[in-house]
């Protein structure tokens, strides 16, 4: 009996192993690509961050000097600060607006598809094109459309928007929220459609009002969506580069300390100044930040899901 059992167990194990093998072979092509084009470079970047290298001459290992140097570099500090400010504002604002829009556009209103398209459009449109339009609307000149509106309708002083160091981050954040809210709205719409109507019906029968339904049905049911959106948004925010370059770089491509972000700093150090070690060190700092933030979010999600 025991022998039979162990034979069966063996058989099962064998089958399991074969099944695993098949599964791995399906994963292999993707994983190989990942290993060669992602994992390899990451490991190399890790090594690079402890070295001094200009891309062609000999590599010199210098220990932690790169890290010491970047934290002494006020351009790095400024870019770190700007990236954090940008993420701190962009993530919650985008999240709330995307959710609000999703709830509005989930209702059976006239022209719903039209409004959905309108909201989604900025996300699809080419960044270069919409940034040019945006820069025209928000031109620092007094004759600009937005400035005219500020002066003549709201009677407040015109702003220099992307041209001034005090408002450049604001302009970038507004643009980013507007450009990306459509995408996250669509994700929220999908989440909303996954909530069973029965829950709302039952709540109505119990006499719940709209706010109570939102608070106790919509929000908890959307938790996984919110979690996903938060993580994606955070990662994307830390990676921001193109928007900053387009809005603040302007015709001469000069991005100031007031608008500099980490990825731009990395680019500048690596390919303008050919300090690949310093650039890798800052990339590593960026990686560490995103890793920590994401781990915290994962942990938060777990605690959240348990209550």
């Amino acid at each position, binding site marked *: 009996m025991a022998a039979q059992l162990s034979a069966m167990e063996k058989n099962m194990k064998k089958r399991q192993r074969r099944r695993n093998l098949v599964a791995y072979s399906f994963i292999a092509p993707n994983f190989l690509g*990942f290993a060669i*084009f*992602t*994992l*390899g*470079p*990451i490991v*190399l*970047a890790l090594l*690079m961050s402890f070295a001094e*290298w*200009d*891309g*062609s*001459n*000999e*590599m010199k290992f210098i220990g932690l000097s790169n890290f010491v140097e970047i934290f002494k570099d006020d*351009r790095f500090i400024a870019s770190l600060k700007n990236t954090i400010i940008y993420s701190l504002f962009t993530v919650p604002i985008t999240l709330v607006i995307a959710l609000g829009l999703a709830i509005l556009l989930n209702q059976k209103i006239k022209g719903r598809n039209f409004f959905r398209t309108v909201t989604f459009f900025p996300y699809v449109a080419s960044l270069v094109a919409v940034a*040019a339009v945006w*820069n025209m609307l928000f*031109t*620092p*000149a007094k004759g600009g459309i937005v400035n005219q509106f500020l002066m003549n309708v709201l009677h407040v002083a015109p702003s*220099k*928007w*992307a*041209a*001034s*160091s005090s408002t450049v981050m604001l302009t970038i954040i507004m643009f980013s929220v507007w450009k990306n809210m459509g995408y996250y709205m669509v994700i929220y719409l999908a989440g909303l459609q996954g909530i069973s109507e029965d829950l709302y019906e039952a709540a109505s029968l119990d006499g719940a009002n709209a706010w109570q339904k939102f608070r106790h049905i919509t929000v908890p049911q959307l938790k996984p969506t919110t979690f996903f959106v938060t993580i994606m948004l955070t*990662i*994307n925010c*830390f*990676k921001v*580069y193109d928007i900053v370059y387009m*809005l603040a770089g*302007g*015709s*001469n491509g*000069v991005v*100031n300390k007031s608008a500099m972000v980490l*990825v731009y700093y*990395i*680019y*500048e150090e*690596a*390919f*303008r*100044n*050919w300090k*690949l070690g310093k*650039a*890798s060190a800052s*990339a590593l700092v*960026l*990686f560490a930040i*995103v*890793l920590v933030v*994401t*781990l915290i979010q*994962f942990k938060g999600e777990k605690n959240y899901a348990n209550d």
Partner: protein
Amino acid sequence: MKKRIISSLLAVSMIAASIVGCGSASQAPEAEAPAKEETPAATEAPAAEATTETAEATSDEPVTLKWALWDVSSTVYYQPLIDAFTAEHPNVTVEMVDLGSTDYSTVLGTQLSGAGSDFDVVTVKDVPGYVSLVNKGVLEPLGDLISKDGVDLSLYNGVTDQVTIDGNLYELPFRSDIWVLYYNKDIFDKAGVAYPTNDMTWEEYDKLARSVTDTTPGAEVYGSHYHTWRSTIQLDGILDGKNTIVDGNYEFTKPYYEMVLAQQKDGVCMDYATLKTQGLHYSAAFAQGNVATMNMGTWFIATLIQKIKDGEYTDCTNWGMVKYPHAEGVEPGSTLSTITALAIPTSAPNKDMAWEFVKFVSGEKGAEVMASTGNIPAMTNDKIVDLIASMDGFPTDEASKEALVPSHTYLEMPANDKSSEIETVLNEQHDLIMNEEVSVDDAIAAMNEGVSAIIGK
């Protein structure tokens, strides 16, 4: 438990994968590092082989030269240069590889750092790009070839001295642009003001620009125009020959910033912040027909002539140019220059033929081709100047022709191995001054401090 490990691993790799989107570019050349370090001996051997091979085969064996450049479709002289060269060397085909103009130097640097680049000839866009390539050790020194073939460097008006690094030359210039002052004759005619001349001090220029300015809303005429580049203002200060842009002391830029800021305030020129965010190109600004004068390089001549001929520019057809304004007590005709040059990478498969090509393009025959397309070759003589000035569409007045001949030229950026870092500091402060975010004095102090820190290292 196992599940949790897997899921956290997944999370880590997910972040890694999404971060790498921005990191991968910087890692590409790094990935090639070990391979490169192992094989210096190996790469040298085939290269030597290749040279001997081509040396034997210069006459009639088919050779394909790969030439790195930018803006193939909008640059008029590449094809004529190639045609002229292949007429002399029928066995050669030249293949152009367009690396794009925006980040040309960066892309080229990356390509040449990695193993497996097979460019025979590369165009070097500017001096900082040149210095960075020389530092990387990816350009072939040309000194021996120059003395072997007796290339006369004196025909380059001293420009080659300014790009000699540690006694060796790694590029030969084929195009050299100087800065001049363009003006729209119609505006001066309408205002009844005399045209700018080849001998103007900065004060006279300021006065002249103000005299044709009209600030009536909707009908503005701008007396001057400064493109958003730092060079349009900052470098005016180096033309007295007393300072350079890499000294670490920038007091000398003050009068020029003050002049332009005052002009900006009085509506004599367009506002920097607007120009920058709207990305208005200087050619579009001049083409609007309400810009009286504009300081810009001679690379604009060919564009201007072509676009007027095509009927695209209708409001600036009656244009002229004069020498750059000068500081009090300095000989008129001192101006800024930039050079575009050809170099041969150390990894070039056909070095001998590449040298033939470089010699041809930067030599007299190449210069004539350049001049006939309205571009200023690095090698100039009276014949070349006549050739440019006699081009259809070039202003017919004598002053414009004279403006082509500078008395002294200063490179926009001298050969300095910290130039890109210095530029970062100067660009930032230029931006802050022109946006009126900091005072000129504070910005100059910041420049002095920032650049001193860089060159002091």
